[in-house]
C-alpha cells in the first residue's frame, strides 16, 4: 500500500501567484478544481488547477490526485470557456500541473474514471482545435493518467526547472513495485534510457517541452519569479497562436528530431505507403 506523503501545495501556490491571489473556488464544483481569470499583459487568460482537499467526498482523491469529480469539473469548465468565447476571440487556457496520479480505487473504476479523464482530455483538445492557445505549466508532478487528463493536450508545455517537477507514466514507488526493482535501480535506468527518467530535464530532452524555465524558486516564488514565468507564458501564447492547432510542434523541435526520431520515422513511412503506389 502506498505511504501517504503530504500533499503538494505547489499547484495552488502557483495558481494563486499567477492570478493575483485568487482562490478560484467555483460554486457547485468540487473544491479540488480551481479556476480564475487573470490577464497576461493584454491577453486575457484563464487558469485551471487541481489541488488537494482532505475533505474530498471521494477518499482516493484527497491528496491532489485527479479523480472523477476533478476530471468532470475540468471538462465542464474548459467547455464552458469554449462556449463563452464562441470562437470569436479564444482566450488562452493555462493548466497548472501538479498532479501526483489519477485516483486509484474501486469506486473510480465502477463510475468510469476512464471516461471522466477522456472527457477532460477531449475538452482541452477541443479548445485547442477551436483556436484557444492551451498551455500546460508543470510546477510539480505530471503523472500518467492525471497528466493525460490535465495538461497533455496543450499546444505548448512549459515546465519549471526544479527537482520536484517529475513526468512519468507511473510513480516511482509504483513502478518499482510493478517491475520488482528498487527505486534506486529505476533512477539508474533512467540515466541511460531517457524516456524512463522522471526528472524534467530528461523530459525536456525528449523534445516534448516548449520551454524549460530555469532559475525559478519553484517552492516559494517571489515577485520576480512570477513575472518571469508570466513572460514565458506570454511568449508561448504568441507562439501557439502563430502555430498549428495540432500537437505537431512536439515532433519538430530540435530535441525531438534526435530523441523521437522513431516517432518521426514511423509517420514518414506510413505517409509514404498510405496510398497504393
Amino acid at each position, binding site marked *: 500500500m502506498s505511504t501517504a506523503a503530504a500533499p503538494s501545495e505547489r499547484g495552488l501556490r502557483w495558481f494563486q501567484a499567477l492570478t493575483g491571489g485568487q482562490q478560484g473556488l467555483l460554486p457547485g464544483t468540487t473544491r479540488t478544481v480551481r479556476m480564475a481569470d487573470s490577464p497576461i499583459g493584454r491577453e486575457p487568460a484563464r487558469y485551471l488547477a487541481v489541488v488537494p482537499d482532505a475533505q474530498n467526498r471521494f477518499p482516493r482523491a484527497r491528496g491532489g490526485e485527479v479523480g472523477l*469529480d476533478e476530471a468532470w469539473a475540468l471538462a465542464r469548465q474548459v467547455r464552458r470557456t469554449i462556449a463563452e468565447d464562441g470562437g470569436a476571440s479564444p482566450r488562452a487556457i493555462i493548466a497548472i500541473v501538479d498532479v501526483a496520479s489519477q485516483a486509484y480505487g474501486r469506486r473510480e473504476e465502477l463510475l468510469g474514471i*476512464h471516461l471522466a479523464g*477522456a472527457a477532460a482530455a477531449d475538452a482541452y483538445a477541443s479548445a485547442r*482545435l477551436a483556436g484557444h492557445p492551451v498551455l500546460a505549466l508543470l510546477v510539480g508532478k505530471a503523472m500518467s493518467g492525471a497528466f493525460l487528463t490535465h495538461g497533455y493536450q496543450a499546444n505548448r508545455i512549459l515546465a519549471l526547472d526544479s527537482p520536484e517537477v517529475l513526468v512519468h507514466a507511473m510513480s516511482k514507488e509504483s513502478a518499482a513495485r510493478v517491475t520488482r526493482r528498487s527505486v534506486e535501480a529505476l533512477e539508474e535506468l533512467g540515466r541511460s*534510457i531517457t*524516456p524512463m527518467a522522471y526528472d524534467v530535464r530528461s523530459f525536456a530532452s525528449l523534445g516534448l517541452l516548449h520551454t524549460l524555465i530555469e532559475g525559478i524558486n519553484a517552492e516559494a516564488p517571489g515577485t520576480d519569479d512570477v513575472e518571469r514565468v508570466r513572460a514565458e507564458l506570454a511568449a508561448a501564447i504568441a507562439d501557439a497562436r502563430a502555430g498549428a492547432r495540432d500537437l505537431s510542434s512536439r515532433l519538430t523541435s530540435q530535441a525531438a528530431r534526435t530523441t523521437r526520431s*522513431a516517432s518521426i520515422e*514511423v509517420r514518414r513511412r506510413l505517409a509514404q505507403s498510405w496510398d497504393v503506389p
Partner: protein
Amino acid sequence: MSRPARDSFSELSARERARVLLDPGTFRELLGPFERMKSPWLPRQGVVAQADDGVVVARGRIGGEDAVIAAVEGAYQGGSIGEVSGSKIAGALELALRDCERGRRVRPVLLLETGGVRLQEANLGLAAIAEIHAAIVALRRHVPVVCVVAGLVGCFGGMSLAAALCSRLIITRPARLGMNGPEVIEQEAGIGELDAMDAREVWGLMGGEQRVATGFADVLIEDDTVAIAAEVRRAFDNVPPPRSEQVDAWSARLAGIDAQHPPEPRALRALWLRGEDH
C-alpha cells in the same frame, strides 16, 4: 440442435483481426514486419523487440469505403504502447484526418487489447498516447472513430481514455475496460479496496457486460468474427454524439452518487439507465 461453431475473433492475431474486418481482398498492411520498424528502447533493456512492435496498421475497405485499421497485438508485451507502436496508431489516425480534411473520407477502426503505456518506454509511450487522443478528437469531427475491445487483455491505462474518446465502442463479455487495472489498484490501495484475484468482482466493475449496461460502451457482442465484422460495418451509420462530449449528462449522473456508499455494480445499472431507452 447444434449451433454453428463460432470463429473466435479475440483469438486471432492482430493481423488476422484487421484482415477479417476489411472487405475481402482489400487488406494491405502498412509498415509491416518486413520493414523491421522496431522499438529502439527495448533491446537496451534486454527485451526482444518484435518486428512490428505489436501494432498492425492496415488499409482496405469497410462496406466499400476507404478504411484504416490499427490493431494492437495483446500477446506481445501485454499490448503495451511504446514509441513505435503508439506512433503507428497516432500516425495512421493523423493520415486519415489529412484525407478527411481533403474531402476523402476514411473509416478508422481501433482494435485495442492493451494494458496501456509500456513501462520500458514510459514517457515516450505516454506522449504517443496523448497524440492518439488528440488525433481521435480531431478525426471524430469528420468521421466516426470505431473501437473494438474483444480479448481477455482488456483495455487499460491511457488507452482506456482513447477507447472512451471513440464514437462507437464495441465490447465482448470477457473484455474489460478501465483506467487502472485491478492489480494496480490492489497494489496502490490495498486488497481491502479491491481483490484483483476476485474475477466476479473485477468483471462486475469493468467487464464488457457491465460497461454496456451502464452506458460506458455501446454494443455488447459475442466473440465471433462474423458478428463483429457486421457490427463494425454498421457502426459508421447513425452515430450519436460521442459520450466524452456529454459532460453535463455524465456530471449529473456522478453528482447523484453517494461517494461514501456507492451503489453496487448491478444497482448502478438500474440507477443510471432508469427511464432511458435500452
